[in-house]
């Protein structure tokens, strides 16, 4: 394991091979071609560094694991524009104990996506993908029955839709038909021009949040700080919450999904805010 880590590469390496099962263990093991059991989870990378620190380079802030610099999966140097974001990423790496669990490191993943751009989309394509979600926006799709759920949707989702309409000066509406609401072209153009004001990194984050919440309106109200992350996730999962209240909660499925959705949405929102802010501290002179 250590021999592999000598290299400066810190890409998401292919899973290391499991040690061969000792030959003394009884005979009829279904041993696959490379000596692994079928369906065994891939071995995780152990934590191979002691200290995580941040340094400032030309392109921005970099993360150092011991003395090695962190790199993205495509071997580019990992640089972020904002110091707070670098600190948060460093905290993620520092909080890994024993093994590195990449699925918990959402901010790192987002930064890697922004740096590598693996789907190779430019700004226009990203905006188009984001606004396309408006046609199938969750908060615009209403049910007619059961009446309790219809009522809940009206009470919870209508305020958010009317907030968005007022804030962006557009018409959205909602619909109970299978085709969804009829979004006028002017609405889409307003959102396109609004999203164009964000930089590329922030747009990656926005598109990520929209994909998680399955709703453009909820994402915009989250980015505009109108609702909290917990509330946005609740609104996104409104029907599930209704069913949970009706039929009961299954911890290993419902809570698991809830925590994962909250983590990803929070990571996305934080990423957008940290990438699009520029803070200056002006010290006020104390007047005697």
């Amino acid at each position, binding site marked *: 394991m250590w021999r592999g880590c000598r290299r400066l590469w810190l890409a998401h390496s292919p899973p290391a091979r499991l040690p061969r099962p000792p030959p003394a263990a*009884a005979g009829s093991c279904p041993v696959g071609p490379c000596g692994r059991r079928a369906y065994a989870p891939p071995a995780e990378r152990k934590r191979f560094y002691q200290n995580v620190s941040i340094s400032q380079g030309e392109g921005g802030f970099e993360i150092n694991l011991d003395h090695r610099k962190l790199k993205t999966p495509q071997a580019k140097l990992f640089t972020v524009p904002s110091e707070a974001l670098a600190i948060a990423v460093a905290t993620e790496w520092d909080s890994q104990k024993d093994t590195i669990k990449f699925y918990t490191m959402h901010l790192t993943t987002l930064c890697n996506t922004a740096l590598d751009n693996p789907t190779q989309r430019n700004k226009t394509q990203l905006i188009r993908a984001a606004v396309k979600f408006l046609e199938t926006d969750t908060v615009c799709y209403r049910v007619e029955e059961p009446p309790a759920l219809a009522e809940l949707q009206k009470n919870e989702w209508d305020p958010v839709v009317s907030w968005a309409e007022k804030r962006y000066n557009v018409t959205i509406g909602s619909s109970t038909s299978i085709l969804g609401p009829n979004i006028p072209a002017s609405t889409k153009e307003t959102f396109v021009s609004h999203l164009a004001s964000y930089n590329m990194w922030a747009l990656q984050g926005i598109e990520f949040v929209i994909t998680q919440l399955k709703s453009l309106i909820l994402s915009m109200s989250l980015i505009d700080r109108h609702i909290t992350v917990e509330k946005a996730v609740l609104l996104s999962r409104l029907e599930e919450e209704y069913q949970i209240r009706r039929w009961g909660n299954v911890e*290993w499925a419902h809570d698991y999904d809830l925590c994962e959705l909250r*983590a990803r949405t929070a990571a996305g929102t934080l990423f957008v805010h940290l990438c699009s802010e520029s803070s200056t*501290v002006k010290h006020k002179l104390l007047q005697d």
Partner: protein
Amino acid sequence: MAALGAPMRTLRALLRELRHAAGRSYRDSPAYRHVLAAFRAHRVTSEKLCRAQQELHFQAATYLCLLRSVREHEALHREYHGRGERSPKEVAGLVGFRLPQQPGGKG
């Protein structure tokens, strides 16, 4: 504006989460120091409605949500989803069998 509650509460909970995440030397970790410095910097203001303060509070609440949900998600994963497959020996043991010994190896 989102209903966030008291900033002190968010700060305390956030520092507690950072403590869980960091381990022994949490007070020297860059995140701890950065959060404390940011909250201190925004404390002194003569304005009644400070937009930067609210932005900071929202960011802190979001980061708190992130840390908390990652921790809970990992705990749930360890509890329910992390075990992988049982070995054939364990499977046999579930129903009370033992795997046969073949002294000469398989034929």
